C-alpha cells in the first residue's frame, strides 16, 4: 500500500504518515510490537484490547506490507503465534509517530493563534 503524503498549506510539509497504520487496530499492534522484540498473539490481543479477528486481520495486513513478521512456535506443547516488527516496520512506525506529533503541534499552534486573534 503506498503511503499517503499530506502537504500542509501553511508551514512545512507533513510527511511520514503511512496508510498501513490507518486503522486503530494496526496502529496499536505496531505500537505494541515497537515496544518489545516479539509478542505472542494472545498477549497482543489482550494488551491492545483487540478482538482476535481484528488482530488477525491487522497482522496480516501489516505482514503483507512487510512491517510485521509472523512466526509459528511452541511453548512446551502448546502452539503459539509470535508477532514481531521488522526493521522497515519500525522505521515506518517511528516516521508515522513523528508525523502525528507534527500534526498535533501544528493544530495546537493554530488553535492558540486563533484564540489570541479572537480575544484581541
Amino acid at each position, binding site marked *: 500500500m503506498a503511503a*499517503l503524503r*499530506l502537504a*500542509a*498549506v*501553511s508551514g512545512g510539509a507533513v510527511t511520514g*504518515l503511512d*496508510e498501513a*497504520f*490507518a*486503522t*486503530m*487496530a494496526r*496502529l*496499536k499492534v*505496531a*505500537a*505494541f*510490537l*515497537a*515496544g*518489545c*522484540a*516479539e*509478542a*505472542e498473539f*494472545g*498477549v497482543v490481543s489482550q*494488551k*491492545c484490547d483487540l478482538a482476535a479477528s*481484528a488482530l488477525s486481520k491487522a497482522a496480516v495486513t501489516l505482514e503483507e506490507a512487510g512491517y510485521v513478521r509472523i512466526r509459528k512456535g511452541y*511453548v512446551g506443547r502448546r502452539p*503459539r503465534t509470535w508477532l514481531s516488527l521488522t526493521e522497515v516496520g519500525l522505521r515506518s512506525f517511528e516516521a508515522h*509517530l513523528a508525523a*502525528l*506529533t507534527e*500534526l*498535533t503541534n*501544528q*493544530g495546537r499552534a*493554530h*488553535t492558540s*493563534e*486563533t*484564540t489570541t486573534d*479572537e480575544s484581541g
Partner: protein
Amino acid sequence: MAGDLRAAQLRQSRSRLCADRGHRRSRADPAHDGASRRAGPARDGPTDGAAPVGLRVGHPRATTPTPRPRRLTIAPDTADTGVRFVSGVTSVTGQYLPVGLSRSSEWRASCHGERSQGDTVSLLAGAEARWRDDGRRAVRVRRADRHSHLRRDSSRRRHRPDPPAPRSRSAVAPLVARHLDVDRLSHTASSFLMESRCYADGMSNDLSPEAALDAAQATRRVAVGATTMPRWFPALAGLSGALGFGLLGVGALTHESGRAALVLCGLLLCVVNIAALGILAGKWLRAGVLPKSGGGASRRWVLLSTGIVPVPIAVAGLVWLVTDEVGWGSLVLGVLLGASTWWRLSAWRRSAAVR
C-alpha cells in the same frame, strides 16, 4: 434402375446432411448476429457495431467494463472557499489542510457533474471531512447521502444506478446548509479531524492525530512495562557471577583442606547465576512478550554493552598467561564479568522504566 434410384436417394440424404452441418456451423460462428442479440446491448463500449469490450458473445450474461469511480475533487489553489451542492454534487474549492488518512479504496462518493481541479478526496456516504482554508476558517463537508450503492471493494467495482433522489430536497438541503455554510461556521480553528472509517473499528470515528498519538504511546508503554525485571535482579546476577567465579579462583589458588568447599560454593553460585537468567527468560516466554535487547535503550548503547562482554574474558585470559595461575584469571573474570552484568542490567531496567 433400382441402383440409380438408390444412388439418387443416397445423394439426397448426403446433401441434406451437409446442409444441416453447414447450418450448425454457421450458428456457432462468432460473427453470427443472433449471438449479440442474445447477449443484449452493452452499456458501455464501442458503438461501431462490433462486440462491446468485455462482452463474451454467445454467453447469456455479458460482463461490461466497470466505469471508473466518481470522485470528489478539491481545488487547492482557489483563494475563496465555497461549497456547492448540485444534484448530489459536492464541490469544495479552496486551500485545504487535510489531516489524517484516507484509504481511497474505501472512500467513494456518488458525485457527478461538477468537478474541480486539484487533488482528490473521496468521501463515504455519511462521512465527513474537515479542514481549514487559507483564511483559517474551518470547513466541513459531509456526504449526506447514506444510501450509496457504490461498493467498497475496489476489485469488484461495478456501476450501480444512482440512489433515488429524495422526495424533497428540503430534508437534505438544510443539513447541507448547516454543515456547509462557511459564513456561519465558527472561525475558531478546531482540531484537525478527518472522519473516516480508517479509525473506526468499533471505536470512535472522531479521532484526532493527538488521540492517535496518545494511544500509540500508551500501547508502547504497556509493551515495555510487560517485560521489566525485578529491582533486585541486576544485583543478584552481578553478585552471584562475581562471587561464583571469584570462589572458583580462590579455590584453585588454595592448597589447603578447604579447597573443595570453596570450589563447591563457587560452582553453586555460578549455577544460581545461570538459573536466575534462565528463570527470567522463561517468565518472559510464558508471559508472551520478549523484551528488546537493552530494553528501550538506543542502538549505540546496545552495541556498546554487548561489546563489553568479551573484554573481561580477554583481561582474565591475559592475567592467566602472565601469572600462569588459572585461579587469578578466574578471580579477575568473576569481578569484571559480575560488574559488567550488574551495570548492563541496571541500565536496561532504567531505560525500560523511562520509556
